[in-house]
């Protein structure tokens, strides 16, 4: 009996409190960018190239334009949500990995706008290490790949060859390719970019044969030599649906995206980000310093800035 009374009073209490707290407040603010206008927030995906972009932009904007910049780490899908809500102002390197969100925010809701090309060209493909390709030159021919499948067997792939797949957030249709070209390989995904890099580092060191999804720009390319397996040429839309995909990857002009309000604000910061454009070589240099030589991003950026004044002077908005 008594416990019932306690229960009832507790429930009643919770009910009253929740009703009160609900009725006490009106409509909430929907955008959260208010109050932080002086600071530019960059969405920085987790790979090193993106870190290099952000480090250089941050350093230049803080030193030359006197704008405070904060680089927040987030991957593409999250970054698009952030650009939409105004929690981030710009993403400097988008690989078009989330077409659904891009369509929704850029075309339908128009809250996110393109900031132009980054200048860096992204290239995705299938690669084998050079030491293996040297011994078996025709491994780069997709049709002859099955002949070598047994060299690529591991305990994970059983009696098929092991194909090291991409990290989950990356654009990929390798499963379809393997199926449609009737390759004797098993697609084994990497759960994260870091995991794939480490695995390749390990296999390369042990001089083992491997076949992997690989891309450029990528800082590790300074340390290892890879040879590409030729995939059929990419034509627009050929990779969808994946179950019928037979073609390779498109050469990707990496793009910048900005929050609409920020892009329209016409501030120096917005102009600078629109102007920011460099080459794959530039980016690899900074990324290589960060990841290969273990420099701090700000130090690597400073080193590049000192040596390439003519490049970045063009990015500064004209006074």
């Amino acid at each position, binding site marked *: 009996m*008594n*416990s019932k*009374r*306690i*229960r009832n009073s*507790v*429930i009643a209490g*919770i009910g009253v409190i929740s009703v009160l707290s*609900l009725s006490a*407040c*009106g*409509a*909430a*603010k*929907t955008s*959260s960018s208010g109050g932080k206008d002086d600071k530019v927030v960059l969405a920085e995906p*987790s*790979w*090193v190239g993106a870190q290099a972009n952000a480090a250089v932009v941050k350093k230049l904007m803080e030193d030359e334009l006197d704008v405070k910049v904060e680089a*927040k*780490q*987030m*991957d593409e*899908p*999250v970054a*698009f*949500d*952030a650009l939409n*809500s105004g*929690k981030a102002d710009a993403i400097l390197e988008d690989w078009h*990995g*989330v077409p*659904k*969100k891009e369509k*929704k925010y850029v075309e339908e809701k128009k809250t996110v706008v393109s900031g132009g090309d980054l200048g860096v060209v992204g290239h995705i493909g299938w690669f084998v290490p050079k030491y293996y390709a040297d011994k078996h030159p025709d491994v780069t021919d997709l049709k002859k790949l099955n002949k070598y499948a047994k060299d690529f067997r*591991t*305990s*994970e792939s*059983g009696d098929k060859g092991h194909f*090291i797949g991409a990290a*989950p*957030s990356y654009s990929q249709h390798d499963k379809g390719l393997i199926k449609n070209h009737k390759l004797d390989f098993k697609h*084994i*995904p*990497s*759960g*994260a*970019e*870091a*995991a794939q*890099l*480490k*695995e390749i*580092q*390990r*296999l390369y060191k*042990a001089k083992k044969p491997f076949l992997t999804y690989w891309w450029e720009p990528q800082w590790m390319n300074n340390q290892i030599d890879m040879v590409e397996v030729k995939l059929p040429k990419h034509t627009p839309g050929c990779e969808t649906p994946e179950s019928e995909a037979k073609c390779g990857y498109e050469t990707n002009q990496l793009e910048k995206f900005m929050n609409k309000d920020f892009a329209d604000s016409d501030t120096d910061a917005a102009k600078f980000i629109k102007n920011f454009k460099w080459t794959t070589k530039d980016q690899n240099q900074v990324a290589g310093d*960060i*990841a290969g030589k*273990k420099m701090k991003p700000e130090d690597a950026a400073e080193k590049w800035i000192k040596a390439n004044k003519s490049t970045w002077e063009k990015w500064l908005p004209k006074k």
Partner: protein
Amino acid sequence: MSTPTIPDKGEQRTQDAAALDKTPSGAGPDDGPGPLQRLAANPRALLVLVSLLVVVVSAAVTGSGAWPRGWTLDIETPLNDLDNWLVDNRETSPIFLYFLLHISNFAETSVDAITGLLESMGWLGVTLVGTLIAWAAGGADLSRRALRTGGTALGVFIVCGVLEMWEATMETLALMTAAVFASALLGALLGLAAGLSDRCERLLRPVFDTMQVMPAFAYLLPLLLMFGIGVPSALIATVIYAAPPMARLTSLGLRSADPAALEASTSLGSTPWQRLRTARVPLARRQMMLGLNQAIMMCLSMVVLASLIGSEGLGDEIYQALGSLDIGTALTAGTAVVLIAVLLDRTTSAAGERLDAVATAGTTRLMRRVRAGVWGLVLVLFGVFAAKGSVFSESEWPEAWTVDITRQLDSAVGWFTDHLGSGVPVLGGTVTWAQGFTEYMLNPLRSGLLATPWWALALLVAVVGWIVGTWRAAATGLVCLALVGVMGLWEVSMDTLSQVIGGLLLTVVVGFAFGVLAARVERVDRLLRPVLDTMQTMPQFVYLIPVIALVGLSRSAGIIAAVIYAAPAVIRITAQGLRYVDAAAMEASLSLGATGKQQLLQVQLPLARKSLLVGVNQGVVLVLSMVVIAGLIGGGALGYDVVQGLSKGNLSQGLPAGIAIVCLGIMLDRLTQPASARRRDQ
């Protein structure tokens, strides 16, 4: 840092004593009935054997056992619709305007406020006030406990500063403070409801189970859709994960209150409300403190995940360092996380011990005044530093006083993994072992499970569930299994299940071996303790990369990560169970002339069976909680689906996979939780 389920000591004793009556005297040669006779006498074992036989035979006959395709439901379309609706209506729907957005704005402001406060206090202020709080929590006197707690706090702050992690540590500390506060509050409220009403308890139990077993990766995405990126989602995800232990232990505390004390309180004419306030809650205080302690540990284990959705702090440092394979930095940041855990753990457990001591021994008036004075001083200092902190010190730790050890750490880890990976003479190294494990254990297990028809597996689950637990456990297991099939995830789930079983076996072997060692050799126990603490609190992301260096990108890598995370709990529970075996029984076996081995095998282990089972059960839950992490380093299957769902922003991929993991978790939990253990906490 103790594990969630700790069998009550007193109760354990009585059960052990009861068990002793049934066991034949441990020493001496075994002259019991032969195995066949024993089997015939035990119809339940026979039943298990028969169903196992059905499984094997049917697997061999049919060869493939997939869930019938016609029995699956299309869940993708409604989930995609929900996804679209959430995105479209975030700014207009009243649910958001009048409810959800308030929560997220409030979360954001409170964390910002704490961060700002810590920043304006400066490093000197934070260190001083933090140390003082720890000392006051330990008793504010010159006793060993108070000094040790204060000293720990001081050391933690200094090390975090010296390692150049000050700013990140402060950001993490701010988020943690808010998260711990919110989860303690929510947990206490839910625990109160569950503790006072049986119906609430029955309703809430599966909810708590789901909250704990559901991988955070799976609900990060819906949270992102509802609350936006950054602090609010991170905070809410953390609270979801950390509130259940607080709630469970609060409820347990309320339920296990001494009936005599309650009776006395009733006979004194107190109203139910008074009784709750003056008797039941105070009596449950110890458990509630333990719950708070557990909640803190759970909060800290979410640090890195929080950084995946745009919150800052130590997790961000770790995640970013991984991208450039910079183990040194990741390890340094991980160390800071462990240190914060140590700080919060020691402070809360010291406060708990002191409350206990005060409750039993009372306290002098002088001491009470001193303590009030110290707390007053803390408040005053707080105010002074918050207002004028910048006068005394910079907001960040001075750079001159830092040491960069990341490079040394990096090369040390590199050396270690290189030599262990394939450089061990004769034995071959970890890469070869992992391959063997995959070929002889994981692959047969997976193909076996895939070949078994679903109905045979269901039969096995039902029989085991019924025998180990009750018919209810069997039914729950069946429902979970069916749900997996209906969602169309049967094959992936079987892949995951094979990995979980493999991981569980390893965990149990390692856990029991070290547990027995720790229980019997005092020195091992003392050496193991800090190692286990580190293993449990070090963010898993830190050791993922070295693990790949050791065994390659494979399912074994995921399993090793799971064993690292799950073994400590099993070791602890095993050691504790063995140590609490009735001393009289041990003495008796010794006097009968049993050798050390006989004593262990025939007295200690059988008597500690209950806690060994609890250990297995904890192992299951913890290994399962690592499925997603394993998915990051080559585990594939459900874990990978969840990760990809989150990173591609695909609700219809991540959520069902997450639910399937919960189903497997609840099923395995019910199959390993003996009926009596369940009765105990009701």
